[in-house]
């Protein structure tokens, strides 16, 4: 079955490249409607092939049965919206389709039981970053009524065929690496009770006990006292922490330097954005048009 899997991945990649090259904006729009059909057929065929039970049986993580359906729904929305982002000729609509990509990946994060990341991605990407993009798109778009709705540089993609070929070559390489059939075959043993999620979480977290005795906390009078003088709460069990609590524990316990560096990067980009925004530039409009 291994070579069939490889062939399916390569055929889907070639068909995907073909459909995307047809869908990218260009002057002659004759065959653009064929692109979505080929793309949907290739993606759907690949997913039907992958979900046939000759592959991957006994390799699940004990997820509930509805997750499989929701995975396909959210992945389909994410991929289709991503295609629309790069094929839409109007920037505002491309940005709105990117919000759909973000929402669909938040759904994937929920399937992966990463609730905190799902909401963080929706708030930061869908909220903050996309609003900034919309602002800049509206600031920088010409509102000349005599012009057409969108400029020529929106309607004609550069090098659609070569870019699709290169991108889907990379995709084929990535897929053939990530679908390592031998490794999956070796891991297709029946599920061992000791390898279930709960047992693994327990063994993983026991290696990293809460270092609560190194912290300082405030007592009732508001004075800082060493935390070791305060009894830890009786219900502080690492195996029962929620998703956000475990991420916070991992972030502050294992990556304090990364946290500081992230703060430095944010500060530098803040200062840099102010400096860039205050730069005075000469207007070369007449030089370009003339």
């Amino acid at each position, binding site marked *: 079955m291994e070579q069939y899997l490889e062939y399916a991945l390569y055929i889907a990649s070639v068909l995907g490249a073909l459909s995307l090259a047809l869908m*990218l904006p260009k002057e002659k729009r004759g065959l653009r409607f064929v692109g979505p059909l080929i793309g949907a057929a290739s993606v759907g065929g690949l997913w039907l092939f992958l*979900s046939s*039970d000759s592959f*991957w*049986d*006994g390799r*699940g*993580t004990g*997820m509930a*049965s509805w997750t*499989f359906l929701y995975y396909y729904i959210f992945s389909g929305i*994410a*991929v289709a919206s991503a*295609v629309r*982002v*790069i094929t839409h000729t109007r*920037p505002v609509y491309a940005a709105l389709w990117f919000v759909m*990509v973000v929402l669909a*990946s938040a759904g*994937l994060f929920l399937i*992966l*039981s*990463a609730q*905190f*990341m799902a909401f963080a991605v929706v708030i930061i*990407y869908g909220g903050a*970053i996309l609003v*900034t*993009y919309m602002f*800049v798109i509206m600031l*920088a778009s010409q509102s000349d009524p005599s012009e057409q709705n969108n400029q020529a*540089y929106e309607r004609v*993609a*550069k*090098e659609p065929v070569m*870019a699709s070929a*290169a*991108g*889907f070559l990379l*995709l084929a390489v*990535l897929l053939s690496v*990530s*679908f390592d059939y031998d490794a999956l075959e070796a891991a297709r043993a029946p599920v061992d009770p000791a390898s279930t*999620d709960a047992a693994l*979480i327990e063994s*993983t977290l026991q290696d990293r006990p809460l270092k609560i005795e190194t912290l300082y906390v405030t007592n009732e009078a508001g004075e800082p006292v060493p935390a070791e003088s305060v009894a830890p709460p009786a219900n502080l069990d690492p195996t029962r922490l929620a998703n956000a609590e475990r*991420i916070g*524990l991992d972030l502050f316990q294992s*990556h304090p330097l990364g946290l500081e560096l*992230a703060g430095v*990067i*944010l500060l*530098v*980009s*803040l200062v*840099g954005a102010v400096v*860039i925004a205050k730069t005075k*530039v*000469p207007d070369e409009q007449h030089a*370009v048009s003339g």
Partner: protein
Amino acid sequence: MPETVMDSLTLSHFLMTGAVLFCLGLIGFITRRNLIIMFLCTEMMFQGVAVSLVAFSRFHLNDTGQTFVIFVLTIAAAEAALALGLVVLLFRRKRTLDALVWSQLSG
């Protein structure tokens, strides 16, 4: 669907979605000529990487994957602020968002 299909959601499925998002962002970055859409496509590549990282975190039961997504979000926010500032600067200089206007930079 039969029982075996239901239970067979693997890491490879999520890696596939992440890889598709990454490659679509890459193709968009190459083909689009609008500077803002080009940077939007880099955000889409970040999104594909985030899906892969969270999937690794889930299937290896290690929270560091999700912690890295926080850092990815930080870098994406910093990049958006700087890149959009640069885009506005370039737009004020040439009154267009066409990336090919700046093709003289490639030498």
